[in-house]
C-alpha cells in the first residue's frame, strides 16, 4: 500500500485508546474532585457558618432542613464529628439546589431549542420544526438522539487529548455560573458575597476552552475561529466588567441577592437608572456569547463553524448546548442585574419570585433571538474597534458618573424618589449625549459614503456616459 493512496483515504473513526481513556478519566475525576472539594467547603459553612451557606431554596427546603437538623440532633452520628453538626441539612440542601439547577437547565435547553427555532421560523415567515411530535415539540429530542448516534470523527493530526477535553470543560463554567443567581428572596444556590466577581471569573474560563478546541482541531477554520473568539472575548470582558462595576457601585454589593434586594427596596430597576451600563452589558454579552451581530467566531458564511468546525456528534452537541445555556444565562443575568430579578414592585408577595424572574429572562432571551433573526454580522476589526474606541470609553465615563452618584447617595439623605429620580434623569441625559457625541467624535458619520439609492438613468453608454453622469469612480 503506497503513501499516495493512503492520503486519499479517510481514516476510520477515532478509536479512543485505553491510555487516553485513563487520562481522560483522571482529568474528569480531577475536575469532579475540584468541584466536590469546593462544593464541600461551600456547603460546609464552617468558615463562620454564613459565608457560603446554602441559602434557603424556598420555604419548603427550609422546613425540610429544620426537620433534618432535629433528626441530626436526636441521633448523633459519627459523621457529625468529621463533617460538622448539621451535615444532613447541608447535604440535602446542596443536593436539592444542584438538582434544581441541573434540571432547570436541562429542561430549558430542550425547550429553548424548540422555542428558538420556532421563533426564528416565524421571523423568517416559515413554520419551523413541526414534524416530530405535536407542534414539533419532540424535535430537540430527535436532534439529541441523532447527535448521540453520530460517529465522532477526529481529524488527522489533531492533538488528541486537547481535542477531547474542551467539550467537557466548557460545560463547567456554564453550569457553575448559575450558582449565584437568586431565584427568589432567600433562594440562591451559591449566594456568595463576591458573586459578580465570581461570574466574571468563571465566564473567563470559557475563553481558554474555546481556544483549546480550535487549536487542537488542526484546522485553519477552527484556529481562525478560536483566535477571533479569544480576541473578542477578552476585549468585551472589559466593558462588561465595567458595566457590572457601576451596578456594584450603586448598589454597594457584589452579592447578587443584595443587588436584586436593592432594586426591590427602591422600586427601581437598574435598567432605568443605568441605561449605559445596561446597553453595554447587553451588547458585550452578545459578543461573549457569539451571537449575532457579534457571531464572528462561528461566522457560518466565512469560517464555517469557527472553533467547533471539526467536532461532530455529541461533542458538537455539547458546544451547542453550552452556547444555548450561556445565552439563557446572559438573559437571566440581564434580568437579575437590570430588570429587578425576582422583584416586581410588590407583586412578588403574590407571585413566586422565580416565576417573575422566568418571565423576565424569557423577555431578555426573546431579544437575543430577535437580534439573531434580524441583524447581519460585524467584521472582526469593526467589533474590536467598537469595543476599544466606543464601549470602553463610554463605560468609563459612565463609571465616573455613577461613582459620583454613589458617593452622593451615601451622604445625602434625600428621599429615594428625589435622589434616584434625579440620577435617573441625569443618567439618561448623559447616555443620550454620550452615545451620540462619542460616536461623532470617533468619526462616525451616518450619511457618509454617498447616496443609498441607485441612480436611475435612460442613458446608455460606457465610460464616457459614466463620466457624463458623474457615476464613474
Amino acid at each position, binding site marked *: 500500500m503506497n503513501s499516495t493512496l493512503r492520503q486519499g483515504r479517510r481514516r476510520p473513526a477515532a478509536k479512543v485508546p485505553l491510555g487516553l481513556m485513563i487520562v481522560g478519566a483522571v482529568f474528569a475525576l480531577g475536575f469532579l474532585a475540584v468541584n466536590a472539594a469546593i462544593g464541600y467547603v461551600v456547603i460546609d459553612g464552617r468558615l463562620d457558618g454564613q459565608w457560603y451557606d446554602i441559602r434557603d431554596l424556598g420555604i419548603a427546603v427550609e422546613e425540610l432542613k429544620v426537620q433534618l437538623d432535629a433528626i441530626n440532633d436526636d441521633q448523633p452520628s459519627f459523621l457529625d464529628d468529621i463533617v460538622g453538626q448539621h451535615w444532613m441539612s447541608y447535604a440535602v440542601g446542596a443536593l436539592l439546589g444542584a438538582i434544581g439547577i441541573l434540571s432547570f437547565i436541562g429542561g430549558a435547553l430542550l425547550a429553548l431549542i424548540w422555542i428558538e427555532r420556532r421563533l426564528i421560523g416565524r421571523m423568517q415567515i416559515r413554520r419551523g420544526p413541526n414534524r416530530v411530535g405535536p407542534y414539533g415539540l419532540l424535535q430537540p429530542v430527535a436532534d439529541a438522539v441523532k447527535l448521540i448516534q453520530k460517529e465522532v470523527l477526529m481529524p488527522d493530526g489533531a492533538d488528541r487529548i486537547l481535542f477531547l477535553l474542551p467539550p467537557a470543560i466548557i460545560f463547567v463554567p456554564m453550569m457553575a455560573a448559575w450558582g449565584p443567581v437568586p431565584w427568589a428572596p432567600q433562594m440562591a444556590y451559591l449566594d456568595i458575597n463576591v458573586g459578580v466577581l465570581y461570574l466574571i471569573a468563571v465566564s473567563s474560563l470559557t475563553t481558554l476552552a474555546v481556544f483549546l478546541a480550535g487549536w487542537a482541531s488542526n484546522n485553519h477554520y477552527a484556529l481562525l475561529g478560536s483566535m477571533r473568539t479569544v480576541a473578542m472575548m477578552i476585549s468585551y470582558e472589559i466593558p462588561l466588567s465595567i458595566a457590572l462595576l457601576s451596578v456594584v457601585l450603586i448598589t454597594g454589593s457584589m452579592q447578587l441577592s443584595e443587588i436584586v434586594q436593592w432594586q426591590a427596596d427602591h422600586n427601581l430597576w437598574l435598567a432605568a437608572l443605568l441605561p449605559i451600563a445596561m446597553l453595554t452589558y447587553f451588547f458585550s454579552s452578545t459578543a461573549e456569547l457569539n451571537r449575532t451581530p457579534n457571531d464572528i467566531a462561528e461566522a457560518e458564511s466565512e469560517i464555517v463553524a469557527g472553533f467547533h468546525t471539526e467536532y461532530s456528534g455529541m461533542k458538537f452537541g455539547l458546544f451547542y448546548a453550552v452556547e444555548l445555556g450561556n445565552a439563557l444565562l446572559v438573559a437571566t443575568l440581564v434580568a437579575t442585574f437590570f430588570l429587578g430579578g425576582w422583584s416586581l414592585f410588590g407583586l412578588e408577595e403574590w407571585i413566586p419570585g422565580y416565576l417573575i424572574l422566568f418571565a423576565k429572562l424569557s423577555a431578555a432571551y426573546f431579544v437575543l433571538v430577535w437580534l439573531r433573526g434580524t441583524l447581519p454580522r460585524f467584521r472582526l476589526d469593526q467589533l474590536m474597534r467598537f469595543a476599544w474606541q466606543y464601549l470602553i470609553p463610554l463605560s468609563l465615563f459612565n463609571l465616573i458618573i455613577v461613582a459620583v452618584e454613589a458617593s452622593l447617595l451615601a451622604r445625602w439623605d434625600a428621599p429615594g424618589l428625589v435622589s434616584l429620580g434625579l440620577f435617573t434623569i441625569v443618567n439618561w441625559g448623559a447616555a443620550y449625549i454620550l452615545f451620540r457625541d462619542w460616536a461623532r467624535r470617533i468619526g462616525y458619520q451616518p450619511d457618509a459614503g454617498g447616496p443609498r439609492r441607485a441612480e436611475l438613468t435612460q442613458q446608455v453608454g460606457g*465610460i464616457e456616459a459614466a463620466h457624463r453622469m458623474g457615476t464613474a469612480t
Partner: protein
Amino acid sequence: MPAGPRQLTGDTVASALSAALPGAVATATAEWVEVEPARILDALRWLHDDAEMDAKQLSNLCAVDRHDRFEVVYHLQSMDRNHQIVVKAVVGEHDDPALPSCYPVYKGALLQEREVYDLMGIRFEGHPDLRRMFLWEGYPGFPLRKDFLQIPDHHPGLPKFPFEEPGVQAR
C-alpha cells in the same frame, strides 16, 4: 445576414484597421474581420485605443475548431459608440496552436483565455496564469477539439484523478 443589430461590418473595420496597421488584416467579410495571428495583439490594442472604434470591452472570446485550423473569435464592443466588432484570428497549426494573449489589453481575457486553453488547447503566449481550469492538470487532450474522441486510450476510462494511481481501485 446573421449579424447582430449593432454590429459594424467587417469591411469598415478592416479598412480602418489596415490603414492604421498595414498588413494586419488577413481577410474581411461583412460580418467579421480576420487578423493575422501574429499581429492580433496590435490590432486589438489599436481597436481598443482608437476613438472611432473605441472597443473598450472584450465581451466574448472563444475558439472554433475547424478540423485543420483554429479560429479564435473576439467579440469586442464599444459601449459609448454602441457597436460590436467581431475579430477573428486563424491559427493554422493544429497540434500545438499558439497565439499572443490579449490580456495586456483586456483584463477580461484572463478567464476566457484560460477556458479556451483548457478545452481547446490553444496556448496564449503572455497570459499570466495559463493553467487548466475545469479539468485537472495532466488531463489528456482537449475535449472541445473535434478529434478528441479519436485520440487513442481516451474512451473509455478517462483515467484518474491526480491522487489515484493506475491500476489501484479506490475503495
